[in-house]
């Protein structure tokens, strides 16, 4: 075993060790048990950094590529393996840095929780599974860890399972993700059937050498299917509904899992399979990303819960990344993943710091009815919590795309990508730059709306305000670190300190992507180059406009927001945003109710008429149901599907159930009819 392999295995298994330790010994040791997790994660981080350092020492693509037979079944074998290239090395650092910081932060945030040690155990389990996704060299192994990530996310969202909403949110996240995962699994199987391997590099190679010649339709379908996994995990439209609810989990968890890492796993996976996505599949990817980016941004404008604003902002930014990959701006997509992880984690942890402080203040004045997350109860926090304030402003400037901050570099590259795509394809594709720039202006607006509502102006509640104070060092230190990591020079030094130039170690370490399925990366690169300057101009303008609007609305109050809201709402626009485009309701009306009606109609037919052949058809129908159930809204998914999936299918499967009449002679009749129909059916062939 080479040292690099040993390091890689240690990165993978140390967090798991931390999980096992906390589960078995945590409750006996008590609070001090977190030292074990911190140590394990610290070592993981430093090992990840050692791989990262390799980028500078020996620039090459595969730092580690090993595999071993997992199992073999006769004619075929399935291998397990680890593959680390520059992309994986960067991703490892992102995951372990944020995980480590969140561990530190949580020692304070979760203080006094009755399941304190178990919380750290779950964090370890999550980090283990996430690193597994990053290291996996085959789609199958990735899928296994993919599910594990889902489980640990489920455990962490529902960590305070005494709260009904938290438990339901966990279940919703789990089930919604499964819908995407079915697609992913089918896609993996399709690729396997065609190529006989799960190995990502091998698949890319076979595609390069024309394994899918002809139209590539099957490859397009397989690609889209695998991408469905990303739609679920990265909360893309139309499966984005679970992410805002997932905010029920503890805030550090939101920062780690639902902002920086797990939701980025979908994007990471798309980066991995990028080489064999056909132009048609990429077009699909781009459209999904575009819709998500714009829609989620619009929803974020009107939310009042500080965490929900950030949640929709995350959905929107993930949409950016996906769109970037879709338009072929491979490097930009992964760049944004990295920068977003830092500034979004910072935003979440800062909001957690605010919530923590609010919570304590409310506790002091014995107020248990006020929502500590509602921004309408805040205001003027700037002086009380200076560190939190400054780090949040830095992260907000970054996400808004202001020069000197990382967000500017990566977002600008994405916007250039959409513009380039439009130049190449014309027509409807103008939707992509519109969505990109539109979301950019809105992002700047709602982020500064958040800042002004929370930190500026007069305190909304004097009684609470008096008791607010800055959070302890364990919470502010990660904030400071993350806000430093949101500064542009981190990614360009030592090549340049010019804030408008993104050429640095990152751009030289991460290549511009290869595509073997028909996309000409040279043409894309050329177009990107030309789109760069106009994109920068427009993006600077829109960011400034967004911030200016927020200033006018919320800081100087030049415009009466109430009045404007009322006026806008005459067109129903405000409500459209506030009710999240009514997607939950649309699912109810378009999918659930007609389906209910439909099943009632179907229930009128007598199944015996249709005999055995019909059963196949029923099978097909459940396929539909499980698809639909995934696209369904909150209430449907939780109150109706899990509780009432039976209720809905009771209409549907009524006839099947009738076959089990309880009378033994009907059973015998069923058997005889069955055997006779088989006899006749197969005699006919």
């Amino acid at each position: 075993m080479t040292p690099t392999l040993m390091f890689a295995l240690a990165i993978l298994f140390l967090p798991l060790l931390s999980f096992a330790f906390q589960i078995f010994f945590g409750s006996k040791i008590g609070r001090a048990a977190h030292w074990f997790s911190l140590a394990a994660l610290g070592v993981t981080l430093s090992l990840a950094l050692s791989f990262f350092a390799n980028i500078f020492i020996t620039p090459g693509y595969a730092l580690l590529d090993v595999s071993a037979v997992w199992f073999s079944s006769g004619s075929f074998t399935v291998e397990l393996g680890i593959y680390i290239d520059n992309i994986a090395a960067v991703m490892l650092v992102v995951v372990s840095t944020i995980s480590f910081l969140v561990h530190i932060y949580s020692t304070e945030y979760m203080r006094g929780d009755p399941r304190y040690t178990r919380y750290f155990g779950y964090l370890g389990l999550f980090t283990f599974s996430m690193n597994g996704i990053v290291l996996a060299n085959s789609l199958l192994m990735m899928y296994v860890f993919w599910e594990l990530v889902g489980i640990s996310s489920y455990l962490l969202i529902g960590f305070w399972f005494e709260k009904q909403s938290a438990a339901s949110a966990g279940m919703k996240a789990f089930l919604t993700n499964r819908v995407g995962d079915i697609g992913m699994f089918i896609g993996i199987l399709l690729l396997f059937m065609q190529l006989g391997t799960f190995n990502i590099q091998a698949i890319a190679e076979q595609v390069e050498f024309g394994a899918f010649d002809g139209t590539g339709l099957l490859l397009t379908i397989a690609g889209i299917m695998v991408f469905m996994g990303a739609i679920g995990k990265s909360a893309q439209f139309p499966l984005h509904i679970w992410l805002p609810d997932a905010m029920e989990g503890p805030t550090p968890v939101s920062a780690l899992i639902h902002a920086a890492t797990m939701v980025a796993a979908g994007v990471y996976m798309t980066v991995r399979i990028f080489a064999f996505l056909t132009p048609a599949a990429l077009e699909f990817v781009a459209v999904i990303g575009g819709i998500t980016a714009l829609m989620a941004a619009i929803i974020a404008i009107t939310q009042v819960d500080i965490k929900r604003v950030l949640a929709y902002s995350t959905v929107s930014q993930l949409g950016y990344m996906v769109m970037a990959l879709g338009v072929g701006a491979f490097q930009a997509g992964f760049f944004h993943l990295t920068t977003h992880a830092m500034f979004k984690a910072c935003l979440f942890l800062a909001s957690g710091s605010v919530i923590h402080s609010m919570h304590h203040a409310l506790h002091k004045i014995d107020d248990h009815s006020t929502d500590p997350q509602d921004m309408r109860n805040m205001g003027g926090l700037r002086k009380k919590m200076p560190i939190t304030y400054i780090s949040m402003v830095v992260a907000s400037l970054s996400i808004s795309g202001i020069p000197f901050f990382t967000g500017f570099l990566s977002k600008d590259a994405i916007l250039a990508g959409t513009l380039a795509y439009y130049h190449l394809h014309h027509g409807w594709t103008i939707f992509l730059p519109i969505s990109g720039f539109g979301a950019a202006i809105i992002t700047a607006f709602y982020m500064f709306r958040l800042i002004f509502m929370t930190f500026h102006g007069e305190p909304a509640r004097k009684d609470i305000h008096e008791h607010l104070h800055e959070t302890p060092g364990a919470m502010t230190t990660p904030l400071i670190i993350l806000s430093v990591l949101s500064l542009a020079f981190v990614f360009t030094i030592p090549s340049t300190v010019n804030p408008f130039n993104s050429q640095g170690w990152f751009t030289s370490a991460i290549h511009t992507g290869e595509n073997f399925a028909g996309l000409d990366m040279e043409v894309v690169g050329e177009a990107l180059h030309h789109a760069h300057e106009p994109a920068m101009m427009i993006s600077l303008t829109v960011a400034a406009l967004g911030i200016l609007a927020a200033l006018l609305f919320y800081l100087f109050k030049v415009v009466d927001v109430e009045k404007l809201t009322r006026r806008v709402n005459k067109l129903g626009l405000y409500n459209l945003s506030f009710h999240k485009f009514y997607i939950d309701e649309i699912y109810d009306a378009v999918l659930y109710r007609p389906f209910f009606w439909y099943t009632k109609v179907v229930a009128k037919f007598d199944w015996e008429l249709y005999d055995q052949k019909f059963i196949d058809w029923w099978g097909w129908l459940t396929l539909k149901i499980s698809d639909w159930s995934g696209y369904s809204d909150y209430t449907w998914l939780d109150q109706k599907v899990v509780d009432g999936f039976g209720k809905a299918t009771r209409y549907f499967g009524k006839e099947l159930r009738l076959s089990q009449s309880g009378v033994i002679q009907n059973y015998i009749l069923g058997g005889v009819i069955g055997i006779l129909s088989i006899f006749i059916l197969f005699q006919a062939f």
Partner: protein
Amino acid sequence: MSNFSSIAFYLPELLLVLTILAVIVVDLIPGLKRFNWIIALAGIVFTGVLLYGDSGVSESLYLGTIASDPFAYFFKWIFLIAGFFTILVSRHTHALRGADLPEYNALLLIVVFGLFLMASATNLVTVYLGMIETVSLPSYVLAGILKNDRKSNEASLKYVIFGAFSSGLMVYGFSWLYGLTGSMSLSGIQQGLAGVQEPLALYMAILLVLAGFGYKISMVPFHFWTPDVYEGSPTPITGFLSVAPKAAGFAILMRFFYSVFTTNSLTTIAGVDWLTLIALLSAVTMTFGNLIALQQENVKRMLAFSSIAHAGYMLMALSILSPDAIKAVMVYLTMYLFMNMGAFFMVIFAENQLNAHTLEDWKGLGRKAPFLGALMVILMMSLTGLPPSAGFVGKLYLFAVVIASKKFYWLAIVGVLNSVVSLFYYFRIVKAMWLFSPADPKPVKADSVIGLSILLFTIPALLLGIYWTPIINLIDKSIGF
């Protein structure tokens, strides 16, 4: 091998018979009566010891009617484990308190003996003897052991009528098979098949035989008895029936079809593509089981339908009928033994402590017994086939052979979709257990034997999902007929 020299290789079965006699005799002696369960368990343990000595043996016994081969050896272990824990757990099942346990234990041991016979039968006579007399007849009685319980009585009635009927069909099919091929032994039948002049009669005969086997493994359309019998029988019996006889059914089905069909490469005997037929039945079986299971409120009945679905999954591999496929079924059966019996033990716990039968009754169970509740989540994960669990590995092997054969892609897709459907009802149980606050939040403690049994079955249900090489090695050695 002659009758007399066969005895040397038949010691485990002989010890089992001695144990049965001992349990019956001890039942008659008032002072010793209460020790009968110890004798039964000790008998099983020592049978296991003797069985271990048979490892690697491959002999044809009793003039070629019974085989003591690695294939049977593997299945015998499944029966012993299932039998051992059923007897152990039954003593602690409150519902069985009124029953005559010594008699019950003796009957159960007879079933185990019959299962041994089924797994090693290589002749129509022994198939019939094993399947009908020694497995089915005591099972009918066991299902109805609670004489005054109307449900138990109904279960045994439906069982005996459906069972006797389908075995009647099967034996009629046997008579034609014998007439057409001129032989009783499986190898003789296989040789005789080539010369058969009457394809239609042969077709009907094999179909009737399939009906008999299909009844044993609850394959649609011979599954109808399953839910009613499973629901009405005492729960330890349900758990046992859902695993052991089903495994034996698969053993005999595989032995029969594999010896009769593949070696002759006559997959289209009598002009019929049997493998497509089985593939179709597999799809129908799993879909049917899963769809109806979705709507069940009674947990035991839900698990009954789910066991139909699992039979469907295993049939999937049978439609390939290669050594790999047989291996996959054996892997799945091993995983299924642990996860399914574990789930039924949990049902026993719920019935014992809370008199809980429906999902409504199960609400908040996780909060009242967090440890067992967590174990149940693992078992449900495993039954659904989510990684990392034994069920996932089992399914992986099944899907792997289906896909590798490049024959029934559609079947693999139906299988995957069915697994998704099954998630919904398995997680209804999880949801009932964890997402509701119990009416009475007082924690409940399981009887230590039952709690320990659940734990003992959950550990492999999880562990075999991560490290299953020993099982594969064992099965690799057990593939020889």
